[in-house]
């Protein structure tokens, strides 16, 4: 609970100790449950990645990391990703 004193609220009060806490966003870490046969085993870049499969049939995928975006067409990958969410 925050500590407040009457003194802290009036003009000219002494400096109140305040921890300088800066909010830091900690990127999530993706963990691979299995290694794909096509995985070359090289280390993955740090940070979260979002893949937006706009049209699985067309293989249209946008991969986003940080402020970067890459658009690819990969029907097999798009189909694989889409199937992961199939009921």
């Amino acid at each position, binding site marked *: *609970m*925050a500590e*407040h004193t009457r003194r*802290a*609220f*009036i*003009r000219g*009060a002494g*400096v*109140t*100790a*305040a*921890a*300088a*806490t*800066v*909010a830091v*966003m*900690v*990127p*999530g870490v993706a963990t691979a449950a299995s290694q794909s046969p096509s995985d070359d085993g090289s280390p993955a870049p740090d940070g*979260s*990645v*979002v893949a*937006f499969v706009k049209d699985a049939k067309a293989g249209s995928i*946008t991969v*986003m*990391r*940080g*402020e*970067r*975006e890459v658009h690819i067409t990969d029907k097999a990958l798009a189909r694989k990703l889409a199937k992961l969410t199939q009921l």
Partner: protein
Amino acid sequence: MSSHREAPEISKDPVADSSDLYAFVSPDKPGYATIIANYVPLQAPDGGPNFFEFGDDVLYEIHISNRGDAQADITYGFRFHTVVFNKKTFLYNTGQITSVFDPHFNRRQYYSVTRTTRGGNTVQLGANLEVPPCNIGPRSTPNYEHLAAQCVHGIGNRTFFAGQRADAFHVDLGAVFDLLDLRPFQNLHLIPTAAATGVNSLANLNVHSIAMRVPLSDLTVDGKTPTDPASLKSVVGIWTTASRQRTHVYEGPGASAQNLGGWEQVSRLGNPLINEVVIPMGSKDDWNHSKPSNDSDYAASFLHPEVAGLLPVLYPGVFKNLAAYTKPRADLVAILGTGIPSGVVPGFQNYTGKVVADMLRLNLAIPATPFAKASPAGLAGGDPAGFPNGRRVTDDVVTIELRAIAGLLIPLVDKSFTPDAATSAVDDGSTATPTQQVFPYLNTPHDGYSAA
């Protein structure tokens, strides 16, 4: 409103909502221009405990086009970040804020500013620049002017300010959006009531402003201070945008949401009221995502504006000449879409080329009019330093555009037309909010305590 909540999508995202843009040659500092971009509109001053602020996840930009093709030649970018010093209190301030460095100022914002030239060369002009707190009340922010003054940052020959101000835009929202009622003339409305005095719906509301004052040479195509009002090199087109990263991922308790992907423009603003009342409902969101250079897609809305068709219907018998005028509105395209070329208004031009684009056009070689002599009617009031030559904080853009749409300026391009007698008197009746005569020109924000 000028562009407050003007489209369905952005009305749900006020932090990214561009609401007004001002651009003018600085009356108090010759050789400089001031540009003010407002966001986060319609702030109730007492809106605590989480008072209004810029978005850490929004890219705010001011674009300058100086080559006549409505593309951005210079872009000033602004990014904010928030620091909470004491996370164990709900208080915005844990005591009086007597300085922006006061430890009682608990939730603070800072920003960086960059300048990018066409082709992608980006220079960071400043970083970690302080933003003042919101104006809370006499106990929390007893000397607000001092706090704001601490946040006027001189960086070389440029000056920047970002923070809360009083909204200077004035309009009678309650009436205008009640079937285009104008209280002083509502006795003539299709659904009449007794004429009344107009109301300034924004009189007690605040906004967040990004203001910058830069040398005129910072904006021109040749990097020189323009001196010839007739030269096309003297005219720049200006617009603002706000952009968000393409995805926002909530990860649940204990993890900050993540934003990933490229920047997608979600709001833009050039001339006042364009997306508000010119662009139709079905196109408003697309408009906010599009670029001015593609505004020919919306040309039909300029050539045949809906309001011009509504006025004769809602005010029967008042706008007979306007009702009979069926030609495309070349006057509005010139004023709002291309700028006014030489030869239309004697001694004046703010033409940026044939590309139809919603940009606020400013002829930098036209000297500022002293504050005391500035006409709120701008160019139509014989004052070439005012709207639509840029826009000053005191320009009455609602009246100017209302009269223009009603046909007041058609004779500039079509001498066969005679405006209706009422056109030069049309007014929403709202009165101006006070402004100040020094940077950042918008007044001290209304404080929350007094607003109660």
